[in-house]
């Protein structure tokens, strides 16, 4: 039970940053911290005590199936990392233009300036 705690702490840290930090870039960083926390959670769900990596290397299939770690969450994490990359890319490109238009990165000021 304790092992999942760190992942949950990362997710909560991410949510805290997104909710309370005013600077837009800090919000985007909070986003990626949160999703990295989720990835850690996903990987730790698939863990098996004393498990090896799910790649077949000079081992017969029967014992491989007993030893290897669960590959499915790892596939989910691979997909989710790439999605996280694309969200951060789009977010940063919007932030560049927001800075150019508004002159500031402070979310609350932007809300007033939008006119």
């Amino acid at each position, binding site marked *: 039970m304790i092992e999942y705690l760190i992942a949950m702490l990362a997710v909560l840290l991410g949510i805290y940053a*997104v909710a309370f930090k005013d600077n837009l870039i800090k919000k985007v960083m909070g*986003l990626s911290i949160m*999703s990295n926390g*989720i990835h850690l959670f996903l990987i730790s769900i698939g863990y098996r005590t004393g498990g090896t990596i799910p790649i077949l290397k000079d081992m017969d299939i029967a014992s491989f199936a007993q030893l290897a770690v669960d590959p499915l969450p790892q596939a*989910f994490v691979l997909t989710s990392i790439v999605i996280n990359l694309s*969200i951060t890319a789009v*977010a940063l490109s*919007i932030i560049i233009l927001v800075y150019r238009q508004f002159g500031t990165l402070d979310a609350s000021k932007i809300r007033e300036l939008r006119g």
Partner: protein
Amino acid sequence: MIYGFYAVGVFLASAFLTGLVSIKSDKYVPHIPIAASLVAVLLTAITLPRVFFWGAVRMQMEEWVAPIGISIVADTLSVTLALITTIIAFLVLLFSYRYISRNSAKYYSLLSLMFAGVLGILYTGDIFNMFVFFEVLSVSSYGLVAFYRNRVSLEAGIKYLIMGSVATSMLLLGVAMLYGVAGTVNMADLALKLPSIGGIVPAVALALIMAGIALKAGIFPFHAWIADAYEGAPSPVSAALSGIGIKAGVYAMLRVVFIVFNAPAVVLDILLVFGVASMLIGALLALGQDNLKRMLAYSSVSQIGYIFMAIGLGTALGTAAGLLHIVNHMIIKSLLFLSAGTVLWKAKSTNMKEIANTVRTTPLMTYSFLFGVLALAGIPLFNGFVSKWLIYVASFEKMPLLTVIALVTSAITLAYGLKAFYAVFLSNEKAGTKVVMPLSMKIPLVVLIVLVIVLGVVPQIGIWLAEMMSGSLDLSLYTGVVLG
């Protein structure tokens, strides 16, 4: 074989093709997605009779056995919504033929990817796959919302992006928890395994998933981003987003609540409460708006409230009424946004008062907006009336107070609809530039008007559709089809 499902591939291919064609000449770029959406309409139309008369169909990606691979399920609910999605997709793409002149290649690619995302959600039978297609839908709409790079759309874009990705992360966390407990991601498999798993993990996972999807569908506590996003986005995009994007969220909520968790009573009451709240607050906020697009955005929030209230009732009639209202609202909202788009095309600002003296409206624009407003408020002879009447009846059986609230909100809806109609269309006979509407803008409006009237005058179609759709929400039929 589910032909409708290939519509996803068609939209994907059209997005990639537009990128390619744009190297040589920008002239032929719009034709590809419009043709692609026509093909998609045909494909879905072929699947509709197959699913309606022989029951739901399951297709397995690459023939892997059910829980191993990803299963694609087309049942009455998803095919009907897919058919309307493809029709509206075609109309929106046709509408923006003359509307977007610069950077059209990227605009069309992103728009067809958005439609691919929505169709992907409608057909998938796998929660993680639903998460991936939710991302496809949202990432493409982030780009589209910030398409006009002025202050309003940029601020709307970044706000929508942050809210949206928090929502999808909640969804992913919920899916991760479900996998941790049940060991599978296939919806039907989950539905079988979850009852036997005790403890609070399924409940927390459901709460997380519902929070994520509710934020995407713009329910009451999370409706902040909707008004900004629709105000910032180009009008065809707001029509597509509100007509289809939000409905994908509502569909996903239905799929998760009814199939995976088999609609526990507590959850339905939560839906009821949030539905009523967003219904009232959406209508009140819309009443106070003088910006045309923001008003339409808040009216979307209140109509989504109607849908969730109807489904939250839990009775068979309530669910059928809610499903029918999804269908009707898709058509009405697209009609309203597109007709607003024609007005805003030449107008400089979206403030109703200023529009009045800058644009002289043509009869078609006036009637389309009027019909939209009347249908939204549920006036007889329009399609809004059929579903709203069912909602009144269903809510009356359960709790008369709800019917009173629903009636009051419809009155408010009529009020702000007519207020906008009067301000924009009736009060400016003389001033303003004559808007000459190209054919590509007229056809969508005419088609939508016909749909609104036909569904209203002949309510039997709507009621039959509602029964067929609500049939697909029961668990045993779904798991029977998927797991064979």
